């Protein structure tokens, strides 16, 4: 048997990925070569052992799915851009049709115009330099002359109006000032008089009131003095009267005592 076992075939057999024909060939080989079968069994045991490795449980993260359907062709960016370009071109075409643009290039000049082309103006024959100078000189001279006359007239008018206006204004101004000064003096004097009168009045009023007050005070004081004096005199009179009364009563008592004593004493003398 020319069958040669290699690692690839062995692995394919171990994981069941051989065709039936290859499988049969290999099994025949194993029958003749038990050491190869032992090798296979040993690898199978390794597989059995390694199958004890546990699967880890894991929760897939939440995926926030988009509820909107994928964008249609009509909503795609490319479509929008191409639509925009097409719309711009169409707009230009329509505008061109309506406005009728005309682009011409002639004698190094580019002309872009809209609407109907204007008929070209006829060119006037060229004038010579001398003629132009003469024309300019004559027009300048006539212009200067007319300007001069106009200026003179204007000057005259201006002077006249100025003189009139000045004289009028001066008259009005002088009148105003004279009137104004007379009135001002009158009002000033009247004001002064009024002020003086008022001041004098105030002063006199103040003076009279002060004097009045002073006199009143003086009279009051004098009356108070008189009253006090009267009171003191009355007190003095009273005291004198009292004293006299007292002396009088004492004298009467003494007199009574004397009389009584006298009355009693004559009787005894008579006895002598």
């Amino acid at each position: 048997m020319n069958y040669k076992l290699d690692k690839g075939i062995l692995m394919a057999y171990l994981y069941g990925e051989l065709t039936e024909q290859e499988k049969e060939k290999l099994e025949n080989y194993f029958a003749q070569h038990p050491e190869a079968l032992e090798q296979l069994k040993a690898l199978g045991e390794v597989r059995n052992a390694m199958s004890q490795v546990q699967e880890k449980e894991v929760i897939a993260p939440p995926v926030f799915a988009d509820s909107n359907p994928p964008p249609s062709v009509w909503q795609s960016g490319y479509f929008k851009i191409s639509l925009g370009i097409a719309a711009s071109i169409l707009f230009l075409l329509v505008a061109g049709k309506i406005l009728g643009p005309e682009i011409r290039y002639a004698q190094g000049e580019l002309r872009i115009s809209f609407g109907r082309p204007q008929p070209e103006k006829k060119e006037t024959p060229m004038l010579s330099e001398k003629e132009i100078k003469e024309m300019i000189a004559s027009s300048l001279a006539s212009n200067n002359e007319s300007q001069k006359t106009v200026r003179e007239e204007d000057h005259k008018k201006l002077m006249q109006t100025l003189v009139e206006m000045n004289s009028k204004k001066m008259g009005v101004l002088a009148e105003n000032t004279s009137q104004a000064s007379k009135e001002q003096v009158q009002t000033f004097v009247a004001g002064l008089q009024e002020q003086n009168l008022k001041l004098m009045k105030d002063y006199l009023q103040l003076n009279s009131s002060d004097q009045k007050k002073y006199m009143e005070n003086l009279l009051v004081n004098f009356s108070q003095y008189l009253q006090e004096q009267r009171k003191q005199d009355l007190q003095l009179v009273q005291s004198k009267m009292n004293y006299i009364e007292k002396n009088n009563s004492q004298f009467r008592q003494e007199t009574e005592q004397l009389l009584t004593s006298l009355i009693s004493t004559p009787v005894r003398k008579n006895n002598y």
Partner: protein
Amino acid sequence: MMHSDHLIVRAREGDKNAQGRLVQLWYKRIYNFGYKFFFDHDLAMEVAQKTFISMHKNVGSLQEVARFKSWLYTIAVNYCREEARKKKSRRSFSLNDLRPGEGEESYRWEESHQRHENPERQLRQTELSDLLQECLMQLSEEQREVVIMKEYEGLKFREIAEALNISENTVKSRMYYGLDGLKKILEQKKITKETLGYEL
């Protein structure tokens, strides 16, 4: 897998709902591929997320619907290789590498998902799984990615060849040496059929 093919067609046309459904269908597979490649949850999550972001961006350019599976694994493998390069340059280690001891403090109790089962049995199964995963991590990256794709993801040799852009014979060869390497590692760690029977 007609239903999946229909989804792929719709996703390729830009249907966001179909793309979302594809993520739901394939997320666990890609995560587990990443997990077995790195034996690290964070890196596996990173790879899975990047893979599906890339899928979302590029599914429109997918030529053949039949090649979706190998195309998706191509993206996943590329991100795994990228992350592996970054990991090597960082020279950092995950906190998950700090394995607590046995008993109630073990994080494996927390990792147990099937709580209705016997907790002790579940713990032993998890420990065995981690032990075998460590054996897998001792293989070279090239062998590891082939072994995971074939043994755990169930891709055909042709699909793996497409995903890795190598010949089918190279895939089979890497698979053979991968299994042979695992046999030796298991022998070194004295993990035999009997041990596995005892463990289970």
